[in-house]
C-alpha cells in the first residue's frame, strides 16, 4: 500500500474514495514484489462493474505515475505503467473515456530522455494500446509527440544503447502504423510519413553496411524482384519479434514491408517521396544495391495493382534528375531500380498496358540522353559520354526485360508501341547537324534492338500459337516492312532479323541462317510436308505478300548491303515460303527471283553504257551475292517440294557456274577475299531460265499464269525517313 494511507488513523473509516483505494492497493510496498495480483483483480472487477468510475480511477492512476516520475521513483513508475496497461486491456470497450489520461501519462514517461528501461516500458505499453481496435471515432487525439519522439529515438546516437533505442523507436512507429494506417476513424498516420519513413530507411542502411563488412555477402540475385518472397524472408518474419528486437536493420525492413502492405493508392506517394528524398540527400543511389534492396522490399509487399505507381514515382524522380542535369551515374542507378520494378510489375500484376506511358517517358529520356551525349561530345568530355552510354543501355535493358515478362498479347502491344513511337520521338528536335542525325540513327537502332530482343523472347518463350503470330497486325508490320528499305544497312539488318523472329513459327531460322548449296537437303531436317494444319492460321504472305516482296525488292538492290543482310534475306525468303506452305506463294517468290535476276543482267549490261545513269548501280560483289542467293533459294525449294525438272535445271546451272562463273556461287560470293577483277557479266548459260522453271512448275501442278505478266514491284515505295515524317 506504498506510502498512501487509505483510512483514517483514528476511526478506521474510509476517507478516500473507493476508486482511489483500489488504485493505491495495487501498488505494493516493496516494488520488487510486483503488482499486487489480488488487488489488481479487484480493480479490474470494479472497472467492469462500475464503468462510470473508470475515468476517475484512470486519471488517478496516471497522476500517480506522474508523481512517481517527478520523485524519480522509477520502480513505481514502471509498476504504474503496468497497472495502466492491465486495466486498459480489461476495459478496452470504454477506451475513449480514459485514453487521454493514459496517453498523457505515457507522454510524460517518454519525455524522460536517455532512460532505456522507462522508454522500453512506455513503448511496450504503447504497442499494447495500439493493438486495441477502436469502434468510436477519435479525431482529436494527437499522436504528433509520439511520432516526433519515436523519430528521435530512431536517430539515437548514444554510445551504449544506440541499437536498443533505435529499435524502440521503430517499434513505436510500427505500432502507430498498425493502429492508424487503415483505420478511418483515427487521426491518420500518413501525414507523418515525412518523419516515419526516413527513420525506417535510415535504419535500413545499417544493415546494408553490416552486410558489406561480412564476406559472405548475398549476391545481388537475392534482391531480384522476380521472386515474390524469398524463403529466408518468410523465416525472418516468423522469427521477427525475437530477432528484430536487437537489430534495427531487420526491424526496419519488417516495418517498411508492413507499411507498404497497408498503404492505399492515395497514400503511396506520401510514403515513397520521403524515400527518394532520403536517397538523394544521403547520396545513397550509388552503389545501386541499397536502393534496389529497398524497392524490392516495397514491390514485394505493396498491393500488386498499385505497383505501377511506384514506377511512376521513380520515373518522376528520374525526370527531376534530368532537369537538375545530374551526372548520368545517378540516373543510371535510378534506371536500374526502375528496371527491377518494371520486371516485377510485368510479371505479377498485369499492369503492362498501364505502363505504356512509362515506356514513352523512358523513350524520351533516351532521346534526351542522346542529345546530352552529343552536345558533350562537342565539348570533348569523354567520361560523361561513357556515363550516358551506360544510362542508355540501362534504359534499353529495362524496356527489354519488362517486355519479356509481359503476357504475349501485351508483348505485341509493346513492340507496336516502340515502333510507332520511333516516329514521334524526333519531333521537336532539329536535325541540322550531322551529329544529331547520327544520334537519331543510333537511337533508332537501339530501339529496334529492343524490339528485336522482345521479338526473340517472344519466339522462344511463347512457342504455342498465339494470336499475334497468326494475325500479324498492321500496326506493327506496316512500319516494320517500310523500314526494310531504310538507307542505313544497320537498320535494315535489324528489321530483317525482327521479321525473321516474328514469321518463324516452327524454329526453322537456325537451319537457314547461311546461304549454302546442299546437294542433300535431308541433313537440314526440314519437314517435307509444311502445309499448316490449322485452319485459323493466316499466313504472313497472304496478308503482306505484295508489300513484303516490293520492299524486299528495294532492299535487295540496295548498294550498301552487307553479307549479313544477304544471309538474313535468304533466311527470311525461305521462312515466308515455308510458313505459308502455299503453292501460290512459292510461285510468287520464284517469280520475284526472276525479276531480280533480270534486273541484275540489265544493270550489268548498262554498266558499259554510261548514258543509262538512271539505272541503279551495284558493285560486282553484291551482284554475285544476289545470284548466289537466288541459286541457293532455288536449290532448296526445288528439292524440298520435289519438283524434279526444276531441281535438274538448278543442278545444271550450278554445274555451269562451277565451270564458267564460280564467283556467283555461295561458296565464293560470300568469301570476302574475292577480287574485284571478276567480270561483271555472267554467261547466259549460268543464269536460270524462266521458261524451263515455269514449265517445271506447271508440270508439277503449280499455277504459273503470273509468269506471263512481268513482275512489277508496288509503286510508291516509302523510305524510312519518309515514313517518319508522314506519321
Amino acid at each position, binding site marked *: 500500500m506504498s506510502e498512501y*494511507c487509505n483510512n*483514517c488513523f*483514528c476511526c478506521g473509516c474510509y*476517507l*478516500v474514495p473507493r476508486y*482511489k483505494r483500489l488504485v493505491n492497493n495495487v501498488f505494493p510496498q516493496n516494488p520488487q514484489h510486483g503488482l499486487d495480483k489480488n488487488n489488481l483483480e479487484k480493480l479490474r472487477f470494479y472497472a467492469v462493474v462500475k464503468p462510470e468510475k473508470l475515468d*476517475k480511477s484512470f*486519471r*488517478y492512476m*496516471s*497522476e500517480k505515475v*506522474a*508523481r512517481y516520475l517527478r520523485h524519480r521513483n522509477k520502480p513505481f513508475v514502471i509498476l504504474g505503467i503496468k497497472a495502466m496497461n492491465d486495466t486498459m486491456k480489461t476495459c478496452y470497450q470504454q477506451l475513449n473515456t480514459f485514453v*487521454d*489520461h493514459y496517453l*498523457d*501519462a505515457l507522454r*510524460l514517461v517518454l*519525455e524522460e*530522455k536517455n532512460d532505456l528501461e522507462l522508454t522500453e516500458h512506455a513503448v511496450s505499453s504503447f504497442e499494447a494500446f495500439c493493438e486495441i481496435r477502436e469502434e468510436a471515432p477519435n479525431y482529436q487525439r*494527437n499522436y*504528433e*509527440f509520439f511520432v*516526433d*519522439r519515436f*523519430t*528521435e529515438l*530512431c*536517430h*539515437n*546516437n548514444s554510445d551504449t544503447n544506440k541499437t536498443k533505442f533505435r529499435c524502440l523507436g521503430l517499434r513505436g512507429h510500427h505500432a502507430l502504423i498498425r493502429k492508424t494506417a487503415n483505420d478511418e476513424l483515427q487521426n491518420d498516420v500518413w501525414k507523418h510519413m*515525412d*518523419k516515419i519513413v*526516413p*527513420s525506417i530507411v*535510415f535504419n535500413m542502411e545499417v544493415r546494408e553496411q553490416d552486410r558489406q563488412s561480412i564476406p559472405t555477402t548475398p549476391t545481388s540475385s537475392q534482391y531480384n524482384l522476380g521472386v515474390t518472397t524469398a524463403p529466408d524472408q518468410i523465416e525472418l518474419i516468423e522469427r521477427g519479434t525475437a530477432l528484430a528486437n536487437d537489430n534495427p536493420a531487420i526491424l526496419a525492413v519488417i516495418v517498411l514491408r508492413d507499411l507498404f502492405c497497408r498503404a492505399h493508392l492515395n497514400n503511396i506517394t506520401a510514403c515513397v517521396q*520521403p524515400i527518394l*528524398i*532520403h536517397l538523394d*540527400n*544521403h*547520396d545513397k543511389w550509388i552503389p545501386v544495391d541499397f536502393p534496389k534492396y529497398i524497392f524490392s522490399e516495397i514491390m514485394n509487399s505493396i498491393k500488386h495493382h498499385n505497383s505501377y505507381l511506384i514506377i511512376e514515382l521513380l520515373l518522376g524522380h528520374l525526370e527531376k534528375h534530368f532537369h537538375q542535369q545530374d551526372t548520368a551515374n545517378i540516373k543510371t542507378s535510378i534506371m536500374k531500380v526502375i528496371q527491377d520494378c518494371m520486371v516485377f510489375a510485368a510479371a505479377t500484376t498485369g499492369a503492362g498496358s498501364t505502363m505504356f506511358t512509362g515506356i514513352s517517358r523512358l523513350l524520351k529520356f533516351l532521346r534526351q540522353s542522346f542529345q546530352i551525349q552529343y552536345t558533350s561530345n562537342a565539348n570533348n568530355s569523354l567520361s560523361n559520354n561513357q556515363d550516358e552510354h551506360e544510362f542508355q543501355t540501362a534504359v534499353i535493358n529495362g524496356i527489354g526485360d519488362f517486355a519479356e515478362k509481359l503476357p504475349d498479347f501485351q508483348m505485341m502491344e509493346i513492340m507496336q508501341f516502340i515502333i510507332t513511337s520511333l516516329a514521334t520521338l524526333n519531333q521537336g528536335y532539329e536535325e541540322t547537324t550531322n551529329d544529331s542525325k547520327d544520334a537519331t540513327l543510333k537511337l533508332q537502332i537501339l530501339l529496334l534492338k529492343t524490339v528485336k530482343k522482345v521479338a526473340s523472347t517472344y519466339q522462344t518463350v511463347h512457342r504455342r500459337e498465339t494470336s499475334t503470330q497468326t494475325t500479324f497486325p498492321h500496326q506493327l508490320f506496316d512500319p516494320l516492312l517500310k523500314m526494310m528499305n531504310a538507307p542505313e544497312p544497320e537498320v535494315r539488318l535489324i528489321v530483317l532479323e525482327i521479321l525473321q523472329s516474328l514469321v518463324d513459327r516452327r524454329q526453322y531460322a537456325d537451319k537457314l541462317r547461311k546461304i549454302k548449296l546442299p546437294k542433300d537437303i535431308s541433313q537440314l531436317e526440314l519437314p517435307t510436308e509444311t502445309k499448316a494444319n490449322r485452319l485459323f492460321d493466316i499466313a504472313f504472305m497472304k496478308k503482306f505478300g505484295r508489300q513484303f516482296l516490293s520492299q524486299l525488292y528495294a532492299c535487295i538492290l540496295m548498294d550498301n548491303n552487307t553479307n549479313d543482310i544477304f544471309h538474313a534475306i535468304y533466311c527470311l525468303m525461305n521462312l515466308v515460303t515455308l510458313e505459308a506452305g502455299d503453292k501460290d506463294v512459292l510461285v510468287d517468290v520464284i517469280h520475284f527471283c526472276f525479276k531480280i535476276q533480270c534486273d541484275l543482267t540489265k544493270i550489268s549490261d548498262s554498266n558499259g553504257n554510261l548514258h543509262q545513269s538512271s539505272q541503279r548501280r551495284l558493285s560486282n560483289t553484291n551482284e554475285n551475292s544476289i545470284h548466289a542467293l537466288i541459286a541457293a533459294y532455288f536449290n532448296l525449294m526445288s528439292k524440298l517440294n520435289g519438283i524434279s525438272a526444276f531441281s535438274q535445271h538448278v543442278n545444271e546451272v550450278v554445274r555451269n557456274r562451277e565451270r564458267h562463273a564460280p564467283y556467283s556461287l555461295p561458296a565464293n560470293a560470300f568469301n570476302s577475299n574475292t577480287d574485284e577483277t571478276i567480270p561483271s557479266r555472267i554467261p547466259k548459260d549460268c543464269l536460270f531460265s524462266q521458261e524451263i522453271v515455269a514449265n517445271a512448275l506447271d508440270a508439277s501442278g503449280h499455277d504459273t499464269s503470273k509468269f506471263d505478266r512481268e513482275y512489277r514491284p508496288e509503286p510508291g515505295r516509302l523510305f524510312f525517313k519518309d515514313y517518319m515524317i508522314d506519321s
Partner: protein
Amino acid sequence: MLMDDYKYLFKVVLIGNASVGKTCLVRRFCQDVFPTGQAATIGVDFLIKTVEVNGEKIKLQIWDTAGQERFRSITQSYYRSANALIIVFDINNLATFSSLPDWVREVKAYANNDVLCTLVGNKCDINQREVPTHVAEQFAEKNDMWYLETSAKNSENVGKLFQTIAEELTMKARESTIGASNSGHDSFFNGDQKTKPVKSSCC
C-alpha cells in the same frame, strides 16, 4: 492535484548550419553543461525544460536538429508544428551567416505563419568575429526576427534566450485564447487545465 503542473507546453526547434553550436546551446540551457567535442547530431535530438513565467510553469519541448545537409528533409518536417524557431549561426564564421537567407526561405516554406522566429549569433566568447553585430541585427530586423548573441561556453545570454522565448510565447498564447477562445487553440494548453483538481483530504 494536477497530473503535470505546467500551464503551457511549447515546441521550440533549433536550426542552422552544421557545427554552429545548436546542441551546445541546448545542453547548456537544459543541463547546464558545455560538452566539449560534441559529435554531430544525427537526425534530431530532444530535451525538455520547464521555465517559470510570471509564477507559472511553462514547459519547453526543445528539438535540436542536425545541421548536416543530408538530414535536411527530416528536420524540415519538424518545423511544421513548432511554436518557436531559433536560427543559429556562428558569428566567427561568415559562411554560416551567408546561408541564413536559405534558412529563412525554408522557414517560410515549411513552418507555421505565426511561428516565433529568433536569430542567434553563437560563440560570442571567441574573438575572431567575422559578422559584425549591426549586420546581423539588420538582417534580423529585415526578416522580422529578434537578434541575440550568445555563448554556450560561458553561458552568456543562453538563459535569457529561452526565457524570452517562453515569455513571448506565453503572451501570444494568452492573446490567442482571449481573442479566440473557441477557435480551438488548445494545443498550447496542458490537457488537464480544464479538469477540476480533486483535493485529497485527511483529518
